[in-house]
């Protein structure tokens, strides 16, 4: 019997019990016969403690593997135990929480994908104020703001989109003051920006999601955007 320092930590000496890891050289059979199911009181137990030590590691390694093997034989679905594939209900996380995290992960994964290089798709969510559900577009499939605007127009065809005029500053304020819709986007750091200020490629790289706002609500965004436009021009 190897009695190592772990024994003191366990404090089993007071109960005069010795724990034996199962299956050291066939002793498991004997031990099993001695143990009665009702004999859980410490004093009536007759077990030998064999603390795991690195010396015995080899045997026990084997045993751990056979334990696993035995489990495999026991039930039809033990294959699930060891496959990396998902086991039903494991890990034990409430479905509500899993769903919430999946939603949050979805939106952050999109931004991760956008950060990654060129060929990977850049799917972003598109919401339009007043529309009952959101859509998703892959920004990589368009080459310019114009193409995007046409696509969005088709997607949300029952609403007008003022995108066609947004590149033209003089019309910008008209658009914003009308009831037309204005496209905005959330960038990587979480700021909401007016679409159209930056070169297309930069936009695709930094866009996390799109929101088509009612013109009036977008006015708060416009002055800074206008300012940028002016600075870029000069």
């Amino acid at each position, binding site marked *: 019997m190897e009695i190592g320092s*772990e024994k003191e930590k*366990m404090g089993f000496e007071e109960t005069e019990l010795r724990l034996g890891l199962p299956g050291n050289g066939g002793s498991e059979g004997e031990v099993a016969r001695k143990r009665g199911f009702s004999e859980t009181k410490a004093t009536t137990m007759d077990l030998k403690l064999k603390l795991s030590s690195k010396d015995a590691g080899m045997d026990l390694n084997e045993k751990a593997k056979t334990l696993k093997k035995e489990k495999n034989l026991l*039930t039809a679905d033990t294959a699930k135990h060891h496959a990396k594939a998902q086991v039903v209900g494991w890990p034990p*996380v409430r479905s509500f*929480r899993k769903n919430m995290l999946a939603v949050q992960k979805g939106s952050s994964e999109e931004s991760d994908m956008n950060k990654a290089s060129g060929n990977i798709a850049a799917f972003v969510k598109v919401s339009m104020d007043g529309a009952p559900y959101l859509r998703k577009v892959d920004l990589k499939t368009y080459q310019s703001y114009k193409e995007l605007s046409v696509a969005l127009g088709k997607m949300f065809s029952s609403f007008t989109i003022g995108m066609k005029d947004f590149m033209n500053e003089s019309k910008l304020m008209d658009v914003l003051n009308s009831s037309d819709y204005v496209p905005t986007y959330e960038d990587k750091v979480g700021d909401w920006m007016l679409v159209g200020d930056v070169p297309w490629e930069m936009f695709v790289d930094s866009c996390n999601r799109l929101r088509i706002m009612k013109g009036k609500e977008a006015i708060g965004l416009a002055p800074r955007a206008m300012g940028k436009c002016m600075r870029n021009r000069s």
Partner: protein
Amino acid sequence: MNYFPDEVLEHVFDFVASHRDRNAVSLVCRLWHRVERLSRQRVFVGNCYALSPQILIARFPGLKSLTLKGKPHFADFNLVPHDWGGYVQPWIEALSNSRIGLEELRLKRMVVSDESLELLSRSFANFKSLVLVSCEGFTTVGLAAIAANCRFLRELDLQENEIDDHSGHWLSCFPDSCTSLISLNFACLKGEINLAALERLVARSPNLRSLRLNRAVPLETLQNILMRAPQLVDLGTGSYVHDPDSETYNKLKHTILKCKSIRNLSGFLEVAPRCLPAIYPICLNLTSLNLSYAAGIHGSELVKLIRHCAKLQRLWILDCIGDKGLEVVASTCKELQELRVFPSDPFGVGHAAVTENGLVAISVGCPKLHSLLYFCQQMTNAALIAVAKNCPNFIRFRLCILDPTKPDPVTMQPLDNGFGAIVQSCKRLRRLSLSGLLTDWVFLYIGMYAEQLEMLSVAFAGDSDKGMLYVLNGCKKLRKLEIRDSPFGNKALLTDVGKYETMRSLWMSSCEVTLGGCKTLAKEMPRLNVEIINEHDQMEIGSDEQRVEKMYLYRTLVGPRKDAPEFVWTL
């Protein structure tokens, strides 16, 4: 005491608050039973199928507050089919037809319909408090009924429910005359909210202490709300996203300084990390912080935030905090009593989140820790032994290693010795969840040492029937045992059938128990409902040798339930 008039007994019993103590009081003698039951106002029913509403009403005519639990715990993890049961409707119907003046209803894992909520809202003039945890089956229409009809509503607390969100108008259904709200939690709602109605509601609720918003509430609204309600003690933010250079954010920073009473903080369902500094001033006073849904706050920002929270007693976080982050928690939060570390990527392929090192660091730095839920990549016996030594006060110890049968990675041993150390050292342990590679030995230790254990969760563990028997024989206070994917069969199930009447329930799924074994048990114990969940029609032929996929048994006063669906057989 028998010479005292009833009123004196009643007065004495008023000081006996916990339902368990009151249950004990009622067993002393008939007189005490009568006085106790007539004066009891709060009743806890751990399994709604253990008795009927009629029995409840007959025994406790003075009932004011009822707590009901429905589905078995493993229903949280999709192990129980959708229409299994747990309907609250018959309870509300029976209560509304009686003379009971219900004021508070707390439900967990039950099916609640809009119809039930509507009936509830109309039946009890003094109804004050509705708490729904992990429930389903209702929509915002039901919430609208509660808002509109419960004139003295103080508390509406919705935690992690699946609610069909039809519109944000339910908030507008609170009448202008409703000024009694103390607690409002709608964080789990997924849809839009009428922000103006919310702000008006807060403005006319001077007693509001607890407010938890959903994702649809933006930072501007939060700022307005905090201006009106600086007295809040418990705050759950909604969407915490804004431009940190904006005026709104600036206003928020100043408004928060006035909120000196906030002790619980949660939410951050969407978050712009650059806006976090606004909350640093309130972190100093926080005793409870729940960032388990704040997937947008990463490593270093999380750690920065936690460094401000020296008085924290309860912390719920995601495992992206990492072992290093847990070391910061250990050195900062000396008062920590409860820690939950959730997996941020439940199906991810081990990008190592937290390991045994984080837990050991916590155990060293936070000796007051008594409740733990820890999802990790791996665990070692040495670590568990150290934790057991450092924190002998555990009441709840729930460890979940993401790979369910993983051994100690250093020694390749099962984790029997580690958990053995935990149960041996923590004499007050009431709840334990096991994971990792485990043999019958761990159950032997549990049976020997876990004298106060009331709830045990087992998954993918054990070698033979002996394991389960050690627990059934040894744990005298065991109330709930739930086992999945473990090799326990009929011998374990049938050796001590009387035990199950001392427990609330037993769940066994993907074990070795057969139909024949369950039938035998049901026959010997008529006061148990032995339910078999049969999803795949395997049992039509009814071979007794066939293994039962899912069995749930519980003690009951009222026999087999009448609302069981087709796929549930009560033997």
